[in-house]
């Protein structure tokens, strides 16, 4: 998957765990993510239990993976890593995995809304942390695309006829 290495992946997971489980209290059933090593092969990481292969974006195309890493209050939140057409050839993401269809009059609606808001806030913090470390996120790649396009347009405008 592009320039993805185990080292980059471990960096992304550690940043996530640091925010999702304050004080480093990662539960036993998620411990495997906390003990990943930079010298592991990507194959061994993708082959762990709790790792799901995602459908490809186009038929015959490469596919990504999701990792059910959870957080301190919700065990189903996931990290995704997916192929991307432009360098570095992959992108990290957070799948909050919390979209439930509840009847409007359900007594749980308010609780679910609070959970979703809390998860979304964590997802934003994680993506900010990844961007600070220079790890690729959709937001970061879009910003780079726009900057590059503006720069190219500026150069074209500056050219002598």
């Amino acid at each position, binding site marked *: 998957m592009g320039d993805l290495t185990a080292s980059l992946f471990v960096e992304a997971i550690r940043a996530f765990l640091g925010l999702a489980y304050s004080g480093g209290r990662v539960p036993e059933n998620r411990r495997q993510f906390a003990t990943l090593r930079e010298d592991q092969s990507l194959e061994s990481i993708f082959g762990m239990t709790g790792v799901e292969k*995602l*459908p*490809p*974006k*186009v*038929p*015959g195309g490469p596919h990504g993976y999701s990792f059910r890493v959870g957080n301190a209050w919700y065990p189903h939140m996931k990290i995704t890593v*997916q192929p*991307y*057409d*432009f360098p570095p050839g992959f*992108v990290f*993401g957070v*799948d909050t995995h919390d*979209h439930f*269809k509840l009847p409007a009059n359900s007594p749980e609606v308010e609780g679910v*809304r609070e959970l*979703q808001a809390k998860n979304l806030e964590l997802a934003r913090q994680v993506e900010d942390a990844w961007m600070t470390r220079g790890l690729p996120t*959709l*937001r970061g*790649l*879009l*910003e780079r*695309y*726009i900057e590059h*396009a*503006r720069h190219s*347009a500026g150069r074209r405008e500056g050219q002598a006829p």
Partner: protein
Amino acid sequence: MTAGRVLIVEDEPIIGELLCEVLYLYEYESRCVLSGAAGIVEARNWAPDAIILDLMLPDVDGYEVCRTLKNDPRTQGIAILILTGMLAHSDRVRGFRVGCDRFLTKPFQPDEVVRELHSMIGDRQQTLLTGIRRSIFFDFITPVDFARQIRVYQGDLFRATPLPTDTIEGFGKCLSAFGERFFAWRGKSDVDLRIQLVCRIYRDRLEHAIHADSLSKDARNTLLELLGEGDTPVAAPLAKVLSTHQAMHPPSHETAPLILAYHFAGFE
């Protein structure tokens, strides 16, 4: 004059803003709203040419927004592109069932979103008149180019139809096999046979047709044989329907453009 008006319904404000900036680069006028309910209101009031619609929204979900807009005479002509992190085949099927015109998944490339918008807005008039959502052409010039066209074709089928991945891959393999046989035959033959294959995507079905100019009876028979070889999911029906088509409409003039083969696959 803009390339068109695009409404973005996306609950993640930063992604919505960045999409607006991307669209501005391509001269689209855009607005972004953060909820499904606001999307429905804005679509009715602002009358955009197209909508980029997220599925996971805090109030009314994207499916419901799409269904509502496609069932309302005031908004049913607006092209809808679903852009979502939901990757399962069942999500695509549901998206097309509620009337979306394209289904793209996150993380998206800005170019692919713009390409689909160009196609949806540019072909809107034709789509309304003929029901054709997209036409994909294969020109059989070189094997390398043909292989590239098949990759584009598979991507287009994926984004504009609810067909499952293995069916789309099957179509691609079948066309690839036909192309290989055709190029091998043309390399050995003295006949300068020029053909074009077109795949038309409708809302509810798919058609493949082969057009050829100046086709002699021998060349026609050869092409029929090339199509008929193998038992791939497209070639066999193509060859079968070709025979029926010929029987029903014998060519009156050998040099006239002909639709040689016709294949139909319904979605729903």
